[in-house]
């Protein structure tokens, strides 16, 4: 039960976004993937669920090579993986409850009553009890992200991928989301990969932090190891001092 990327390469036109990325997220582990804007973090997440196909290399989830799966096998795997989108990607023509129930409707043998119960339970978990009848347009940014999270965890997946879950949120809402990510890991035992720019958040939630730079994983370590890293690029990023990165160039 792990996510493993091996020498993953992905280019768009002549631009190599991922240039041989290798990374492993162990069972029950929370890894924060950090890096500068445009460094390919979201692209990397999309290769894990087969939304994008790597040009070369391989992605293994649960020991299965995602690129080699047949269509039905890929959908079966996706039922094990929750995906929280950067801008929530809620279905705006549906209510909050209908959004959360969408994944549940793909679970074989599930009844309407069970769908309803699980939807309520997921909304409770993200502290949005009673928001079921509202539409996404009636929610704040933070609430939308929490609904996206509720939708991703409603099927009780074993893996959750978070694409910048706290970007654009105020510090209090950020802390709420971080607490939810920790709750998912501790109470539901999910394996998590969190793409973020927010180092405070990464330090709070991650067992390990991986730094993606120029298409490759430049550094991996525990939050303490990242804090103590002497790598100028990593330091530039965590301290917000671009001049440190320019010294390397």
């Amino acid at each position, binding site marked *: 039960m792990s996510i493993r990327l091996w020498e993953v390469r992905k280019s768009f036109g002549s631009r190599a976004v991922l240039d041989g990325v290798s990374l492993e997220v162990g069972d029950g582990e929370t890894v924060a993937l950090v890096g500068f804007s445009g460094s390919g973090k979201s692209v990397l997440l999309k290769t894990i*669920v087969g939304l994008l196909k790597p040009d070369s290399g391989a992605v293994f989830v649960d020991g299965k090579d995602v690129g080699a799966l047949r269509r039905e096998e890929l959908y079966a795997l996706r039922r094990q993986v929750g995906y929280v989108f950067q801008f929530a*990607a*809620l279905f705006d023509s549906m209510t909050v409850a209908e959004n959360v129930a*969408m994944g549940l409707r*793909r679970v074989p043998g599930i009844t309407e009553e069970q769908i309803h119960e699980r939807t309520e339970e997921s909304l409770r978990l993200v502290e949005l009890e009673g928001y079921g009848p509202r539409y996404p347009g009636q929610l704040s940014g933070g609430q939308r992200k929490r609904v996206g999270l509720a939708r991703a965890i409603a099927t009780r997946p074993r893996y959750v991928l978070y694409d910048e879950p706290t970007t654009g949120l105020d510090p209090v809402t950020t802390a709420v989301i971080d607490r939810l990510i920790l709750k998912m890991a501790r109470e539901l035992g999910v394996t998590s990969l969190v793409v973020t720019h927010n180092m405070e958040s990464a330090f709070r939630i991650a067992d390990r932090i991986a730094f993606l730079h120029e298409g490759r994983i430049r550094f991996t370590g525990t939050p303490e190891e990242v804090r103590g890293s002497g790598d100028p690029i990593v330091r530039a990023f965590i301290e917000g001092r671009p001049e440190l990165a320019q010294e390397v160039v």
Partner: protein
Amino acid sequence: MNGVWSAPLAWVGRSALELSAGFGRFGRFAASAVRALSDTGTWGRLLVDQMARLGVESIPIAIFIAAFTGIVLALQASYTITGAVPLYFVGALVAKTMILELGPVLTGLALAGRVGANIASEIGTMRVTEQIDALETLAYDPVAYLVVPRVFAGVVMFPIVTAFAIAVGIAAGWITSINLLDLSTPEFVRGVRAFFDTFDVRYSLIKATSFGLVVTFVGCFSGFGATSGAAAVGRATTQAVVVSSMLILVLDAFWAAVLL
């Protein structure tokens, strides 16, 4: 010499490549739609809602267009056939023209604007806001969820809306004839029956079915092709309306050549 020809040749080459790539994308999209037909569990429960949205809600605009077309047809027919041909031919002209041509084609073009644009903008917005990716991550085939019910609804509902339009157009022509022209109801009906053939109705509904297929499918294809941003959604919507309108006219000529 090279300098003079290189630019236009490069343009022709680029255009040919883009065109063949576009055909390739269209072919792959069509294949994925055919494959998604077997996923009845996904699209089956969405079909009735789409039939209501694309079909039932289109009836008012189709009726509006057909009513005024029927009025104009009756008046123009009467103007054209004065003297040489008996006036009851107005009924024949109104019915024949509404059934064979104006009913299906005007309804098709109106629905290309209403339905095609609606589908392309809705799916395009879903594409650029990652809602289609979200469907994928929730283990839905987006083609089964979004495309099949819309295309199916179009194929079923376009002939029904067209039938309504034809009936209203003929009725409008009849009301015009008995009120504004020197024509009685029996005379108008005599004209309608004089040249009526049940094949005409079949021909008309076959055309309408093909228009339903084209409008909904092109709308879906254009929406899925939207890349990013509001401008892309706008382009997809325009493309859907323009391409499906052109294809309606091409199909109109095709069916006339093949079936008449």
